[in-house]
């Protein structure tokens, strides 16, 4: 789970990393007060999880308290902010910097180490830079058990062309970043830009912290809150532990497993269809058919497409869940079902009894769903597959 900038910076500051003085604000008045307190010019930054905030107009240097108030109001109540889900702002003191660096820690899956990445060109599109000029990226592998050693910080500092005095400050900062990475069970910690001020100190200009949901059990196990999600459906799915992505097409996918769901997504696109949502109905969730279908229906799809080929998730159990869901939710859109695997024979009977026509080939099922979505609405009975009603 990606955290907000203000959370990342709090985690950094707790471990001794210098961050600009800042205030978290919920209203335009608070933002104006913060700007007055911190002095202008200062920076007003929308707290949203998406990247590219600068290009999207969600971050601005303001020259006066009045400008801070006006811009904050625009973000918090205007259409721009609403489109990006802006609910909180961070007002920060401006930093006079001489250089901008890039610094992050993640893992190296092949070497089985942590990996520190740094670049003398911070503040830019680092991904693009890595693709175009990979030689400019400094990489230092860190044994995850031994931890970051001072010499590794020095290797990076001098590769970044820092002065000896700055190198010492850099080592302390990187030690704090390493602690954040380990203590918070992070998948990624990133500072971009990392400012080098005129006086040679290092200040985190931005902060990114992606924590590992799989490690929540040893991190206090915080329950996700609405603000981390773009839509109510995505939030409700997360609360259920159901992998979910929101799109704006016609066909709701309700498939088992990330790999198969992704392929069904591909196949829908290949056939010229569009996807309303991606939803994984499998693994630990294979008994949650009712809830899964309810989430799909929140998108008012033209078709629900169910594809599974179960190893552990038993086909018969899934089919029973689908039958129950149809009975409870009485969906008005057609349902295409292709449920295979353990208990398949019984599943076939259950689906037929529920008024569906079981299919056995994924590509055939996708073709059927795309055709149904393309056809003019025919006011079929709830839950009925146009081709599958007896």
């Amino acid at each position: 789970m990606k955290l907000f900038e203000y959370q990342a910076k709090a985690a950094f500051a707790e471990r001794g990393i210098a961050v600009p003085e800042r205030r978290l604000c919920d209203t335009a008045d608070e933002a104006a007060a913060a700007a007055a307190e911190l002095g202008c010019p200062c920076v007003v930054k929308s707290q949203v999880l998406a990247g590219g905030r600068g290009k999207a107009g969600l971050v601005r240097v303001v020259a006066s308290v009045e400008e801070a108030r006006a811009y904050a109001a625009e973000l918090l109540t205007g259409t721009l902010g609403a489109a990006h889900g802006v609910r909180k702002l961070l007002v920060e003191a401006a930093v006079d910097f001489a250089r901008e660096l890039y610094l992050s820690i993640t893992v190296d899956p092949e070497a089985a180490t942590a990996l520190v990445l740094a670049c003398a060109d911070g503040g830019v599109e680092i991904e693009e830079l890595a693709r175009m000029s990979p030689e400019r990226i400094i990489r230092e592998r860190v044994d995850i058990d031994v931890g970051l050693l001072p010499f590794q910080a020095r290797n990076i500092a001098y590769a970044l062309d820092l002065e000896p005095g700055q190198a010492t400050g850099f080592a302390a900062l990187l030690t704090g970043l390493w602690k954040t990475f380990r203590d918070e069970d992070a998948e990624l910690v990133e500072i971009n830009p990392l400012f080098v001020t005129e006086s040679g100190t290092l200040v985190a200009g931005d902060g990114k912290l992606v924590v590992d949901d799989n490690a929540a059990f040893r991190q206090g196990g915080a329950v996700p809150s609405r603000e981390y999600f773009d839509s109510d459906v995505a939030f409700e799915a997360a609360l259920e532990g159901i992998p979910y992505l929101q799109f704006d097409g016609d066909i709701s996918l309700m498939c088992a497993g990330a790999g198969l769901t992704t392929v069904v997504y591909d196949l829908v696109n290949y056939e010229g269809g569009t996807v309303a949502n991606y939803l994984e109905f499998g693994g630990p969730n294979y008994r949650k058919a009712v809830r899964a279908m309810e989430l799909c229906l929140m998108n008012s799809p033209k078709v629900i497409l169910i594809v599974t080929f179960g190893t552990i998730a038993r086909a018969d159990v899934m089919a029973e869940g689908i039958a129950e869901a149809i009975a409870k939710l009485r969906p008005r859109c057609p349902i295409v079902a292709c449920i295979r695997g353990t208990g398949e024979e019984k599943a076939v009977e259950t689906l037929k009894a529920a008024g569906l026509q079981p299919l056995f080939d994924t590509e055939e099922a996708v073709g059927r769903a795309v055709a149904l979505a393309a056809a003019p609405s025919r006011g079929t009975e709830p839950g009925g597959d146009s081709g599958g009603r007896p």
Partner: protein
Amino acid sequence: MSIFIDRSDRVLVQGITGNEGSFWTRHMMELGTAVTVGVTPGKEGQSVEGVPVYHTIRRAVAERPADAAMLFVPPRFTRDAVFEALDSGLKKIVTIADGIPLQDSVQIRKAALSCGARVVGGNTSGVISPGLAMMGMFPYWIERVYRPGRIGVMTRSGSLTNEVTAMVVRAGFGVSTLVGVGGDPVPGTRFAEMLPDFQDDPGTDAIVVIGELGGTMEEEVAEAMLSGAFTKPVVAFLGGRTAPAGRRMGHAGAIVTGGKGSVADKIAAFEKAGALVADRPRLVGELLVRALGPRS
């Protein structure tokens, strides 16, 4: 023929007394796997499917030596369980756990590499040589998927395995060994690390690689082909061609791979290396026929 697991491997099951552990122990044995001993802390003295249970691996192998460890252990305990198996010198370990913390998975792979052991998983169904033996949880009774044959299969995705392997069988082939390396960002064993075994296996004529968006495991297979380390025909199936970027690790993940990792990159790498690439499951069978000639 088989790689990784055959009927001579004595398999120790960790977490044998749990629901999954006992259920799949029965099925592993029914398929012919030599499950000889089980471990669940606190349950010594019990038995599961006739297999005696011990508190610890050390106590278990002192009485019943084992060659491999099969873990039915929750993700939060998986690191400990893998280290316990490595500590007793077990060199073949399969863990199905879905949801191993990322940093734990780094430690697991590091430890396995330093012991010269192979940990397959997590987030996988395991390894099966149809008709012979398995470590994991495969519905081997589904004949249109688990037919013995001469095609090796490697997959990152549990849910795609049945889908794609059914196409292998529909085209008249069968499977020598299927290895699910798992869907985690840091799998214990990478595709390319299994290639020498398939290369040396006289029972494997070609392999099918079921890949996905992200990471560089598919590119590593292509490199092994280019370097001449792997010379058998390869059919690659890649899902996620049209998927929105779902990078688990944001920018840095993409930087790590130096711009690799997209499906387009993987397809380009495979095609350059001479693999046949399928973007629909059905194509996998057709491409195998193209590579090996038609069967039955």
